[in-house]
């Protein structure tokens, strides 16, 4: 079946009425080590093809692997952060199969003796509830090379005249994190999947073990899904959708497979246990290779490597290096910054928490930090297809500029409208907030005579509003302040105007 064909789908609510979904998520994370898992080659992303290779990662005859100690350390820290047990005795195993971009034709991985096993990760769902995802295991392995198929229309192997292989990626350390079957999520299954991957991503980032860039493939997700008749508790036949590489896609892929499984089962069909490809553009999955029990990787312990037996005191030392869990940190900061749930969600969705925390540390107020990082700069970053932190970093704009801007407002030099103009200038590359304010002549009019003249004129022109305020409807003052500011061509101090109006009308 080609990517263009569509399959029958069942309505999502109908699926939930008849079936319980069971999820399983396998996430591969490329570690951010300087060198590969079993040799000393560099791991820089985007280097010229086949420039970061040696006899070991090319699988040349006679070459032997040596384990990267930082890779093991990262694996243990990930295991600890996922509340796993760390094995006292762990071995690598060979997973034997042929693939043109896998140099040795076996992948050095782990099989029945993984470094970490039996943990859990609590994830926050959209509806405000917390869902516990049980972790089966986390194990170490190596990445394969990358094939580039040339001559075909689609870049896929079908129709290509030849293939080019880049082994720079071969041997990059990977950690595979596998969940236990996730049951009981019901209608929240797509959300659980997305939230799990998002939480895992934040956790790995906080650990500093990976740059977790899904778009660059340093974090890759395979989604297993099956349906069982509602209430039966029997796991159905699963499909494995490979390389679902964005948070939104994870959610969509789960939903799509639920609806596809539902349609097949409801029509009396049975699910084929297979690998499926996810198509980001069309939002559907298509059949890949059939995965059956006939697939035999002939695992056996890797005889070229010695077992890993992490000393308990070392494991405890590593435990002490774990950062605050992201969920806990979010709760702590939300309380400290007095953000509402809605505000906090916006901050998190935009990935602003780190920037805001840095800004507050640099002397800014939480409110100003949130305000300036989520307004104009977010709009511009979005238009540029970037997230705010990378966009701002690209401009050379950081917490210091926000703090400076806020100081210009609190010191009385700029009002809010002027501050917005100054910020736009900063984002346009015109310099610091002060420099922009100087260049653009942004300065509140501090002449009290001018303010008095404007206030008196506005009160005289709006007798009904003035009367209301005299009667105690203080909130009506806003309409008058706006007019005063207009009189003063935007250079008035709104707070001073408000105070003077209220005083003139006997309310201060």
């Amino acid at each position: 079946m080609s990517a263009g064909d569509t399959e029958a789908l069942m309505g999502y609510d109908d699926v939930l009425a008849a079936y319980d979904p069971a999820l399983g998520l396998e996430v591969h994370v490329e570690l951010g080590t300087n060198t590969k898992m079993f040799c000393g080659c560099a791991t820089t992303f985007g280097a010229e093809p086949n420039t970061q290779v040696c006899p070991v990662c090319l699988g040349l005859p006679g070459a032997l692997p040596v384990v990267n100690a930082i890779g093991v350390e990262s694996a243990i820290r990930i295991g600890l952060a996922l509340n796993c047990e760390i094995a006292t005795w762990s071995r690598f195993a060979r997973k034997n199969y042929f693939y043109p971009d896998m140099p040795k034709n076996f992948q050095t991985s782990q099989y029945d003796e993984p470094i970490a096993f039996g943990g859990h990760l609590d994830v926050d769902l959209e509806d405000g509830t917390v869902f516990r995802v049980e972790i089966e295991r986390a194990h170490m392995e190596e990445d394969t090379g990358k094939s580039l198929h040339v001559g075909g229309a689609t870049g896929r192997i079908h129709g290509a005249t030849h293939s080019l292989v880049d082994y720079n990626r071969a041997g990059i350390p990977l950690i595979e994190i596998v969940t236990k079957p996730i049951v009981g999520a019901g209608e929240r299954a797509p959300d659980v999947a997305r939230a799990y991957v998002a939480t895992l991503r934040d956790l790995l980032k906080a650990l500093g073990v990976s740059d977790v860039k899904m778009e660059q493939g340093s974090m890759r997700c395979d989604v297993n899904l099956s349906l069982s008749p509602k209430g039966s508790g029997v796991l159905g036949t699963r499909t494995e959708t490979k390389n679902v590489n964005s948070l939104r896609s994870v959610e969509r892929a789960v939903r799509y497979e639920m609806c596809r499984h539902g349609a097949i089962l409801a029509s009396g069909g049975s699910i084929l246990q297979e690998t499926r490809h996810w198509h980001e553009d069309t939002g559907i999955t298509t059949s890949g290779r059939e995965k059956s029990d006939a697939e035999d990787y002939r695992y056996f312990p890797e005889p070229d490597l010695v077992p890993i037996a992490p000393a308990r005191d070392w494991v405890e030392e590593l435990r002490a290096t774990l950062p605050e869990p992201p969920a806990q940190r979010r709760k702590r900061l939300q309380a400290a910054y007095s953000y509402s749930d809605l505000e906090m969600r916006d901050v998190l969705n935009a990935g602003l928490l780190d920037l805001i925390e840095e800004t507050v540390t640099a002397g800014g107020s939480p409110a100003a930090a949130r305000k300036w990082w989520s307004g104009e700069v977010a709009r511009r970053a979005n238009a540029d297809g970037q997230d705010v932190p990378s966009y701002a970093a690209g401009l050379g704009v950081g917490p210091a500029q926000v703090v400076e801007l806020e100081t210009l407002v609190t010191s009385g030099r700029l009002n809010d409208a002027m501050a917005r103009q100054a910020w736009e200038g900063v984002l346009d590359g015109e310099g610091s907030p002060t420099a922009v304010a100087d260049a653009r002549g942004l300065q509140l009019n501090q002449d009290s005579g001018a303010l008095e003249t404007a206030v008196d004129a506005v009160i005289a022109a709006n007798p009904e509003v003035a009367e209301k305020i005299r009667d105690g409807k203080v909130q009506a003052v806003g309409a008058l302040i706006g007019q005063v500011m207009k009189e003063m061509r935007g250079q008035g101090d709104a707070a001073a105007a408000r105070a003077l109006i209220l005083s003139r009308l006997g309310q201060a």
Partner: protein
Amino acid sequence: MTDLTRASAAELADLMARGETTSREITTALLERTEAVDGAVHSYLHVDRDGALATADAVDRRRAAGETLHALAGVPIAVKDVMTTTGLPTTCGSRILQGWVPPYDATVVARIKAAGLPILGKTNMDEFAMGSSTEHSAYGPSHNPWDLDRIPGGSGGGSSSVLASFQAPLATGTDTGGSIRQPAAVTGTVGTKPTYGGVSRYGLIALASSLDQAGPCARTVLDTAMLHELMAGHDPLDSTSIDAPVPPIVEAARRADVRGMRIGIVRELTGEGFQAGVQQRFDEAVQHLVDAGAEVVEVSCPSFTYALATYYLILPSEASSNLAKFDAMRYGLRVAPRDVDDPSAEQVMAATRDAGFGDEVKRRIILGTYALSSGYYDAYYGSAQKVRRLIADDFASAFERADVLVSPTAPTTAFRLGAKIDDPLAMYLNDIATIPANLAGIPGMSVPSGLADEDGLPAGFQILAPAMADDRLYAVGAALEQRLHAVWGGPLLDRIPDLLASAPTTPMATPHADATTKGA
């Protein structure tokens, strides 16, 4: 005037140190010897005349300049073709690696180069070290210099025959189930399989990773010890390499002291199944050790009965995985399948493996793939690992009662070329006495014990020691060598037939264009 081709490595080193000869003279003499005899013996797959002479000249210059050199600097060596060598073809005796020139040196080769030993060439071997006769080499067998119609042992028959035909005083070997010791036994030379992890495996084209061990081959126990010491020691590139000092092997070889040592005779490795002449020389050798002050005990290792079966599950399993990389994608042979337009990667791989692997290699890949497959793993590979543990336990209890264990190295003297080629099981039985040491990771040595009465061919005496007690092998081997040399009136190889007299009568393909004229 010393015959430079017959002198030991230690003697050559002394001659050079005293200024009585140069590395160039020695190297030239050996290369001439090769031109004369290797058409008949076929020890080499590749001779590096220019490279060897360049190294020899460099060492001679450094010596003349008064530099401090390694004890073996300038002594030429032959390297088994299983070890990668920068700039020299490395085929592992296989068609599938024909023409492959590695971009890196095996650690052992790097140490040889650093010590200044001229590398004469790469020696023949059974394909991927699978065999006991070199008959499985894709490039034709090597011949036993004692009788050119007989096998020189295997897989390291190129290295054993290169020594016994006086083409080199030193050679490297690898021993997965006896590939150093059995060839030494049938050619009247000396060879040691060190403790597993004692010598780096980096750059050895792997047969079975948990069994493979590189080691030294030479004509005397002292030379073997000197080469062993050069090769040994921790290598950060090999995770299974032992990070501990090398045992004092050269000192043990020089002292040759067995007084008070307990020599254990392994009941399961003598008697039935061993050729009468081989057994006889073994019994005499034991008596010589007693005369030298050792004590004899008999030990039993009942699990050894299962050693061969265990070995032929573990070895093919690991080999099937190690050899999977030969897929025609990156190096070596690439064969296009016949009658297929636009072949897939898998079709090219299949055609290449069909043409590039010999029957024995295919047999073991199939065996190993089967033994590892789902549903059979526990019964085969899993059980084999358990028996392996029992064999190690048997050794451990035997070494409580004895300091070393001894047996004949191989059950028979060299058999005739072709005699067992169609009977794999008979071929496998050659390694019955050598395999247990590989399964347990302990060191073993073969030293000549004499010529069997019935065929006049060399027999080997095997010595086994606990892990990291390699020095005991040399103490016992040297003591036995001393006594036997006294009895024989010189080395056993003094009695080897003159190859130059017999060479023209043996119809052989000559890999060197001028071999016939030089040899005539």
